[in-house]
């Protein structure tokens, strides 16, 4: 305790020092940049526009650095400076969400037609330093894909991963109908980084049945960057990154809000989400947002999915004061979900699995209900962020961010007696991080971004559960430093280099079953970790460290006027996560024993991504091949069937292999004529475990999406959507034979064969009723097709959802 006080005191002291030197720096800068007096009557005016669509940008801040004078752009993007002397001026231009820009003007006479285009396209990545910015900046339909506010609002009731699967190369890994997490180019969980409002999500993302704990209604848009690293946070996103950004609030005196009320036929769901925004011209901004959703049991075309009901709620608040020189913002969000786990998936030993695999319908089917019984998950995530920035005149921007996250996961099992209402899993993950970043302004085509990160993570497994800990108590410390240099060449070409170094230190207290400790040979290799042992268990204190270097190089250019080209090469490392290191025990919903490995090395990925985009007046085609070679790739595979007193169970080991993934994503857009538009996406991944000479387990099958839509001048839109998913023909055969006492015979347990191909049709329509209200209707699985999904852990037990009609009403005020 006293130690903590001292640490806090020292930190305060250090912060104070930093602040003092900053002040000194500012004073120094101000001192050298005094303007001289002269007879001055010149005028400088112009327009701020969006580089991509030439739309006027309102509320941008234009600062005349020599005069230390700022103004806002008006509704038409216009701005005006008066009483200027002839000479050279530096204009510093900012707009919410855009990357700030500096322009040099030679002023000899009145100037009134200055056009200032701003890169409004990568606005979502405002405060996220993506190593491959040059790789993504070129393209509208390319490697970076954004889902905008409209789409999010029209899918207000969906999970993050389900919305993202509209993007080529992105699919979702499911556990039932309400737990889903994104897969990018075949990789998921710890390999996909989610940056929520500038904070890297730390929500026990390691488990495949742990969905991201966030509410899409709290965010304004989502950007997926395949094959890139957000070097500002870490270097370990070897799959890709997902960046969610808050609403951009303009600088003007206003107050507005919106609400969405909706209902869903399948699962008889109701949902409501509301937000209120307050903004002042002086830079004060605030937003409050909350949503609530309740779903009952979902149903497939043929039966109810008993105990698949869910409940979600979230609340978020944002307040900021921003000026042209500095700003401070604070964001708070709390998400709470209760998710029922399909009753039929709670099975005993492998003979139950055999029964489930051979049955045509789930073993438990009851009438519809809103009740959420055990087994179920209760997950909450609290996120708090405080950040500040300060412009260092003529130089750049200094950013400081602190964030705090608390993820609490409770999993309830079918229990009886005194522990009936006690969770079988109770894990609290606490993460705090501090980022200090510096972004220089571009000068001579060169821009530098650099920064430091310090992170502290604490995991606590509550022993009150009376069940062996799935994840042990641990403390993880991370320190990192990065630098990204971005150099603009002529003709909109550019090159980018990024380097990051991280050091991770992990200390855990872990009880091992003594028999496992010996069988694994840990006894010899890790004897120094042993603290104490009794007859059955060994208490160990593993201390592991993972230094890692991540490097990336990207280049982009234009090949003629209609074709863009980008290439990116990344070398990245990922440290094994707690689940891969420490797992030990029975995993109920999968009916298998899962075992981690203490001696894992870091994964090392070498990835090459290319994007070529061709666009003409009516057609846009984008082709994005990738090649990812991963050394020490960690994956879970079956290796044995073992008898326990609870029956026979499969044993699955986390193992390392050299993996090779390559694939191709294609996006195609054709404006047919009138208001008719055709969109198509194609995604294909090929994954191999090189050493084993066999396909990787769980690779997304080939998928093609097609969409035809008509939009009228008022924005009313109607369309038809189809999704075709092929059968995954490339899969490793992990089937096994099991002795069944009931029939005194050996039976093949087919856990490997992927489900058949399927084709789904959907409809959607958005209708604007008045200036401030509208209705949208979506129909998913229109034909009520029964199907199963290879990427759903519940595919052994039940079909996917049948027809689902969602109607929602939106009102703005």
């Amino acid at each position, binding site marked *: *305790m006293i130690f*903590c006080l001292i*640490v*806090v005191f020292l*930190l305060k002291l250090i*912060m104070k020092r930093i*602040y003092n030197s900053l002040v000194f720096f500012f004073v120094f800068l101000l001192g050298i940049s005094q303007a001289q007096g002269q007879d001055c009557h010149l005028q400088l005016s112009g327009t701020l526009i969006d580089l991509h669509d030439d739309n006027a940008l309102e509320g941008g801040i234009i600062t005349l650095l020599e005069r230390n004078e700022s103004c806002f752009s008006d509704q038409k993007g216009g701005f005006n400076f008066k009483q200027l002397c002839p000479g050279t001026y530096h204009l510093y231009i900012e707009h919410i969400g855009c990357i700030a820009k500096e322009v040099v003007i030679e002023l000899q006479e009145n100037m009134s037609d200055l056009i200032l285009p701003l890169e409004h396209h990568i606005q979502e990545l405002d405060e996220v330093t993506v190593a491959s910015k040059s790789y993504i900046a070129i393209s509208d339909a390319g490697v970076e894909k954004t889902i905008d506010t409209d789409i999010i609002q029209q899918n207000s009731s969906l999970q993050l991963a389900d919305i993202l699967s509209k993007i080529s190369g992105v699919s979702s890994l499911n556990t039932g109908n309400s737990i889903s997490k994104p897969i990018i180019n075949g990789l998921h969980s710890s390999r996909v980084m989610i940056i929520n409002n500038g904070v890297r999500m730390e929500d026990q993302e390691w488990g495949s049945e742990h969905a991201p704990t966030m509410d899409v209604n709290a965010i304004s848009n989502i950007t997926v960057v395949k094959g890139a690293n957000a070097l500002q946070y870490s270097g370990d996103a070897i799959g890709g990154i997902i960046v969610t950004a808050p609403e951009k609030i303009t600088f003007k005196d206003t107050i507005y809000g919106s609400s969405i009320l909706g209902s869903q036929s399948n699962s008889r769901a109701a949902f409501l989400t509301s937000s209120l925004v307050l903004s002042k011209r002086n830079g004060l901004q605030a937003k409050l947002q909350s949503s609530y959703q309740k779903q009952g049991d979902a149903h497939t075309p043929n039966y109810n999915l008993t105990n698949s009901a869910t409940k979600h709620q979230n609340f978020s608040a944002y307040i900021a*004061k921003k000026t042209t020189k*500095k700003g*401070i913002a604070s964001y708070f969000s709390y998400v709470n979900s209760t998710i029922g786990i399909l009753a039929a998936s*709670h099975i*005993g*030993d492998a*003979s139950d699995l055999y*029964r489930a695999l051979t049955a045509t319908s789930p*073993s*438990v089917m009851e009438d519809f209900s809103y009740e959420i019984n055990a087994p179920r998950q209760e997950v909450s995530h609290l996120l*708090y962020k*405080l950040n*500040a920035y300060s412009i260092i005149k003529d130089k750049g921007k200094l950013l400081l961010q*602190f964030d705090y996250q608390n993820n609490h996961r409770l999993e309830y099992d*079918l229990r*009886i*007696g005194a522990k009936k209402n006690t969770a079988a899993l109770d894990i609290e993950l*606490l993460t*705090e991080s*501090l980022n200090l970043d510096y972004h220089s302004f571009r000068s001579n085509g060169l821009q530098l971004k650099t920064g430091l990160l310090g992170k502290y993570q*604490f995991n*606590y*497994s509550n022993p009150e*559960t*009376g*069940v*062996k*800990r799935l994840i*042990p*108590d641990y403390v993880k410390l991370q320190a990192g430093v990065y630098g990204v240099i971005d150099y603009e060449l002529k003709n909109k070409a550019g090159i980018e280099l990024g380097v990051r170094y991280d050091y991770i230190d992990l*200390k855990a*207290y872990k*009880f091992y*079953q*003594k*028999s*496992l400790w010996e*069988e694994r040979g840990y006894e010899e290799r890790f004897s120094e970790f042993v603290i104490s042992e*009794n007859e*059955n268990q060994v*208490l160990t204190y593993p201390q592991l460290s993972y230094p890692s270097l991540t490097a990336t190089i990207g280049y982009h250019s234009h090949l003629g006027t209609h074709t863009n080209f980008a290439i990116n090469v990344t070398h990245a490392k990922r440290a094994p996560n707690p689940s891969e290191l420490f797992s030990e*025990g*029975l995993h109920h919903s999968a009916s298998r024993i899962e075992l981690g490995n203490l001696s894992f090395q870091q994964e090392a990925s070498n990835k090459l991504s290319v994007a070529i985009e061709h666009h003409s007046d009516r057609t846009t085609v984008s082709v994005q091949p990738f090649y990812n070679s991963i050394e020490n790739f960690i994956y879970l595979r079956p290796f044995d069937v*073992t*008898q*326990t*007193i*609870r*029956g026979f*169970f499969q044993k699955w080991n986390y193992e390392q292999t050299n993996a090779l993934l390559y694939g191709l994503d294609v996006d195609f857009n054709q404006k047919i004529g009138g208001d008719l538009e055709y969109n198509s996406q194609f995604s294909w991944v090929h994954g191999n475990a090189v050493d084993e000479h066999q396909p990787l387990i769980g690779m997304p099958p080939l998928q093609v999406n097609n969409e035809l839509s008509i939009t009228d001048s008022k924005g009313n839109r109607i369309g038809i959507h189809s999704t075709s998913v092929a059968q995954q023909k490339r899969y490793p055969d992990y089937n096994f034979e099991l002795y069944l*006492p*009931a029939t*005194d015979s050996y039976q093949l347990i087919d856990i490997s064969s992927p489900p058949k191909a399927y084709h789904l049709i959907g409809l959607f329509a958005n209708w604007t009723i008045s200036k401030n209200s509208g209705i949208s209707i979506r129909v998913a699985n229109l034909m009520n097709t029964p199907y199963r999904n290879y990427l759903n852990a519940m595919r052994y037990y039940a079909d996917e959802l049948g027809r689902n009609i969602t109607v929602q009403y939106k009102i703005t005020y």
Partner: protein
Amino acid sequence: MKNLFFLFSTLSLFLFNSCVKSLETPELINEEELITTLVVTLNSATESLELRYADLDGDGPNTGEYQLEDLKANTNYTGTLKFLNETEDPAEDITLEVKEESNDHQVFYVVNGLDVVIESTDLDNNGYYLGTEFTLRTSTTSTGQLQFILRHLPNKPNDGNPSTAGGATDLSVSFPLSIIE
């Protein structure tokens, strides 16, 4: 200035908070209602047999050990089941808890190849089968399997078929047995 001061004080506060939770030696979790051993006692007019299956490391790598006996043909046995946790010393008798929460438990019997008839004789508080006590009547000589499955929260009443009774399995042990003259 004021802003930054506010920022840093808040920061300090949170850092302080985090300090309070430091990594401490965790307490050992002794799993409750852990069953390591099944003991089946079979008494006939002339003899007393004991079948046993024990797996002390639960889902660990060690396999369990059987103690088996042959049954006599055309004999009536009365049987009792005992569930023990032998990781405790002395061994904890989990059968007591099973009987205490009898409404939430049931033992299912699965017979294959053996010429026997087995029937539960004890009931739960609602008058439905519990199954920790039973009668077992052997007929002709044969070999096969006798399986005991203990479940909690099965649907009650049921027809004694574990594949349709639901619930969660606490124990599932199958004894390879012979009936001899």
